[in-house]
């Protein structure tokens, strides 16, 4: 990808260094993996509120009279079903149904959308959307705003009370997967109730040059809410407990949405779109593989890439695995042949050349308590 090139920086990279974060290369960026302790950061998000810098992620604006028609053609979901202010989880698929990236699409106005994509896939997403836009001669424009946009995400049960102190926006009116434009700490933001942690929380998109001001205001107000800055290490264990897929682990171009339990995202009935024929065939026949949840019955931590066996035969691979900080269990997601998938089935995960027993459990591993 970027190879030996200088890593990209977010508007907050210097601040992370000042905070003592450990910075690692991630998707071509230099990103904080942890500030002090991944476990503590993880628990802070489950019990109070954690603050993430996600400015590396891509924000692509689609604007124009045919923005709806274009996006309905380009992605697997139906952005036309969104009301203004609403968001949906989506995927960009190839003609063969393979996943180019997973996305969140926000409808900002009748003919204006934001497509938020993974940093590692930004170029591929822009390229695909650009090509489809030109080829279909849609009356809409594409603007890759990623470098001008920062994303600061307070996540956790105290996030709403914290953000409420900094804004006049009525947060009660912003339900899950909804958003509104408004000032937070005097900074113009898109305030979205979305996230990737399995907790309630917000994603605050603002101009890159206001990012530091926003981060500092949220941090200061967050003191009495138990806020802690959190890195990508905690983000990974949080999303894994919540059963959320990560591109490059659970998702790639050789994987289709039905294999990873995301068939509900695909709206076959909306008319023609990229990948429809292939996805319809998979929907009819059923996927050949399934993404499953595993909980270890023996004492070893499953990790991405480890072999999964059934009755002594290799049948698949772990896509993500960890010791769950919330549950205290060793958990994994794995892709296995669909016919072997059933809650309660047992598998072996090969750790350092030794098989360890694991049981298939329901996904997600963790669901937040709701009132």
């Amino acid at each position: 990808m970027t190879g030996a090139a200088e890593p990209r920086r977010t508007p907050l990279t210097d601040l992370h260094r000042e905070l003592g974060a450990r910075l690692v290369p991630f998707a071509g960026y230099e990103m904080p993996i942890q500030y002090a302790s991944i476990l503590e950061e993880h628990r802070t998000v489950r019990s109070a509120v954690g603050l993430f810098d996600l400015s590396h992620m891509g924000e692509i604006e689609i604007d124009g009279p045919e923005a709806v028609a274009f996006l309905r053609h380009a992605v697997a979901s139906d952005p036309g079903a969104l009301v203004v202010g609403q968001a949906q989880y989506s995927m960009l698929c190839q003609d063969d149904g393979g996943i180019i990236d997973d996305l969140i699409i926000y409808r900002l106005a009748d003919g204006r959308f934001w497509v938020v994509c993974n940093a590692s896939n930004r170029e591929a997403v822009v390229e695909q959307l650009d090509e489809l836009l030109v080829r279909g001669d849609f009356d809409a424009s594409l603007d890759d705003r990623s470098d001008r946009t920062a994303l600061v995400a307070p996540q956790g049960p105290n996030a709403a009370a914290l953000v409420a102190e900094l804004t006049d926006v009525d947060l009660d009116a912003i339900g899950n997967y909804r958003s509104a434009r408004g000032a937070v700490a005097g900074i113009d933001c898109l305030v979205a109730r979305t996230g990737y942690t399995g907790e309630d929380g917000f994603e605050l998109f603002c101009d890159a040059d206001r990012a530091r001001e926003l981060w500092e205001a949220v941090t200061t107000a967050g003191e009495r809410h138990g806020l802690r800055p959190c890195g990508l290490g905690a983000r990974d264990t949080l999303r894994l407990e919540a059963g959320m897929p990560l591109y490059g682990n659970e998702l790639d171009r050789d994987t289709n949405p039905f294999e990873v339990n995301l068939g509900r995202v695909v709206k076959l009935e909306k008319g023609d779109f990229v990948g429809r024929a292939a996805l319809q065939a998979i929907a009819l026949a059923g996927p050949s593989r399934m993404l499953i949840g595993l909980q270890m019955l023996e004492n070893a931590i499953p990790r991405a890439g480890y072999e999964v066996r059934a009755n002594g035969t290799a049948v698949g691979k772990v896509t993500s695995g960890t010791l769950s900080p919330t549950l205290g269990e060793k958990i994994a997601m794995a892709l296995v042949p669909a016919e072997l998938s059933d809650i309660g089935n047992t598998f072996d995960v090969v750790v350092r050349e030794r098989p360890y027993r694991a049981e298939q459990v329901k996904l997600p591993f963790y669901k937040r308590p709701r009132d």
Partner: protein
Amino acid sequence: MALPDDLRYSKEHEWVRVEGSRATIGITSFAADELGDIVFVELPDVGSSLGQFATFGVVESVKAVSDLFSPISGEVVEVNETLRESPELLNSDPFGDGWIAKVDLADASEVDALMDADAYTAETA
């Protein structure tokens, strides 16, 4: 943090404390900090033979899996069973309660190939 000066240190960030023909081994505070929260440790079997600088176990942090390399060769006579339930001792007290194994030294002269505290401090600076 100042390193204990009665220990010898390896480039792989393990320490050894020699008392007669018996040695205690563990990982350094530098290694523990680099790894982050340690959540799992795989200990060697009592009675197994360790080779100098050969792998003898595994530690896992939330994110990473790392081999342990023995700073000396010898036979394992005792392992720190407490670490199985409390691997976080490797972070909180790496030179004390977080010791990993006790070994009957095969060749006391191997210790000479290891660094003293000053040399190790310079190595990790």
